[in-house]
């Protein structure tokens, strides 16, 4: 069966065991979580999880139902066109690279240099996952020292 990419948002109690409960449903089926972002929802006792996974649509549907079934989850939202989806990346370059070129590249992706030190600079971009990937591949010519990608976050329009 064909593999599909899915973004699932889970709103659940902000308590110690929740992350294990959520991720366990994927692990138990041999499914990898491609990316995962968790943070508390302000002024509540809830957290929001944004999960990106890949796999058989039927299995993912079953995982979604099981996520819903967890005692600690309030709501599960499956991503569709109606969501704005962003991801961020931090890239460290050596200060020996051409900083103005890097700056120009960042500008093209609505990003910027967020830190400049003696030996290295750090660039940041937050954009759709595809665009983040383009940015990373474009950055290759400046010999990145380290790339750290954040997980996807998504919100309904």
């Amino acid at each position, binding site marked *: 069966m064909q593999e599909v990419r899915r973004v699932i948002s889970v709103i659940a109690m902000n308590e110690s*065991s929740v992350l294990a409960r959520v991720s*366990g449903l994927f692990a138990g089926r041999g499914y990898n979580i491609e990316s995962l972002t968790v943070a508390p929802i302000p002024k509540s006792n809830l957290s929001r999880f944004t999960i990106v996974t890949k796999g058989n649509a039927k299995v993912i549907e*079953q995982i979604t*139902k099981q996520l819903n*079934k967890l*005692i600690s989850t*309030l709501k599960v939202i499956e991503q569709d066109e109606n969501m704005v989806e962003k991801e961020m990346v931090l890239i460290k370059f050596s200060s020996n690279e051409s900083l103005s070129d890097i700056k120009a590249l960042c500008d093209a992706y609505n990003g910027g240099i967020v830190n400049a030190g003696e030996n290295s600079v750090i660039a940041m971009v937050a954009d759709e996952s595809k665009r983040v990937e383009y940015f990373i591949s474009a950055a290759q010519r400046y010999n990145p020292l380290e790339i750290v990608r954040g997980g996807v976050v998504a919100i309904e329009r």
Partner: protein
Amino acid sequence: MKMSGAQMVCEALIAEGVTTVFGYPGGAIMNVYDAIYKQDGFEHILTRHEQAAVHAADGYARATGKVGVAMVTSGPGFTNAVTGIATAFTDSIPLVVISGQVSLSLIGTDGFQEIDAVGISRPCTKHNYLVSSLEELPRIMKEAFYIASSGRPGPVLVDIPKDITAEMGEFNYPKEVNIPTYKPSYKGNDRQIKKAVDAILNAKKPLLYLGGGVILSNSSELVKEFANLTQIPAVETLMARGIMGYDNPLLLGMPGMHGNYSSNMAMSESDLIISLGARFDDRVTGKLSEFAKYADVIHVDIDPANIGKLVDVDYPIVGSVKDVVEKMLSLLKHHINPDRYQPWREILDRYNGLHPLKYEDSDEVLKPQWVIQRVGEILGKDAIITSDVGQHQMWTAQFYPFDRPRQWINSGGLGTMGFGFPAAIGAKRGVPDKVVVNFTGDGSILMNMQELVTASEYKIPVINIILNNHFLGMVRQWQTFFYDKRYSETDLSFQPNFKALAEACGGIGYDVTTKKEFDEALKDAIKQNKVCFMNVIISRFENVLPMVPAGGALYNMLLEHKDK
């Protein structure tokens, strides 16, 4: 009132109306056992193994409909309990299991008898808690009982660090639970129900596919009323035996791998399957692509995750069988014409006549089916029947005349050998006025035979009928059929002296090889009112038939096996 965490556990159990706790003490749970010693609100039954404590609580729950309670210590106490918890989980049985844990300060240090109980039990509990402060203990106890028994029932683990059970605090047991993230829906969508009812009225070959959810939701009477009013034939899964009553002409039997011919043909030829509290287990459906090819499916289930999981559903209804069938009945009442399904019933009657469940009786050697039917004739609906796992389990499901819900108790989903005897102990404690018989095998019984001691000590007279084929019979049957008779590690010719074993533990033993001996032994066992092992030697190579080979289509049943 100020009290210790241990006392709070006891007070919470009493507040929940618990009268029996099955368990086994140890270091991390000792404070609670000290509090148990000082109270008289409930009895505690000391099983001789933690697995048996959980199975006993499970049997108690299945027989009474109440929440079963088991208590164990940390580490090995807890890991011993896991098989019991998983067994209850797979069959959706409401349990609260309380385990001791090492003190908070030791958690994560590889402390003595420390094991991550919530981690291990996460995939086999409905929910679990590691109590992290005394303040939350009363609320967690309250929630545990609520979660275990509401919605789709299941086991809930409460893991309590030792220092919390020693700490003193104010006890305020909540009157209500408020879990904003957990709101099971019982009612079912009215529009979907209406559509399903229209489908029933328009069907030509409808079939009621009844599962354990009917029993769990206490809707057997209602479902029977529905069947009787509509005259729609029914099949009962392994978990649902007893709903319709064995002599109800609408009952075809049990579907699936060891189902009878008419049940499986009904599934295969039906044009509308009305699934009530069943979950399309692979042992029921056989090859999925060939399953119920001509049928639309109405699936009523309290658990939305069950709907559409394996089989495409045309009328999904999330709700309790009780609420939904009640609503269906009121909608159908004045429109139903039971004659409409008469031709369908005739087809099924013909199938039934063609290949009824059967076995060849013998004068030389006892046949397991005869033994089961004989117990049915003598005890009938007055008994609660439990079983272990294997051929004897299937024969019991096929041949015992079950007459009411909660009469038949077995590990259907997980298939746990060793379940039957402790479950029978729990059932007998819960329903003391019924005779409790455990049909077991010479393999299975050894997996919890230490419970002879428990049953003797507490005078819990469970009749264990060991259908002794000197084999791990079910596995042997597969080896005969599919592995060219290579009987790898299934020959149990080396046997204990079952009679002496029972006697050594304060029970009674019987050796039985003939019908006459069996009748006498059963009569005596009922009269003696003591735990017993009845070692019934049966024909060694008897097979469970019909059989749908694993992965085969339901309509392709092996009806006979002729040894070549």
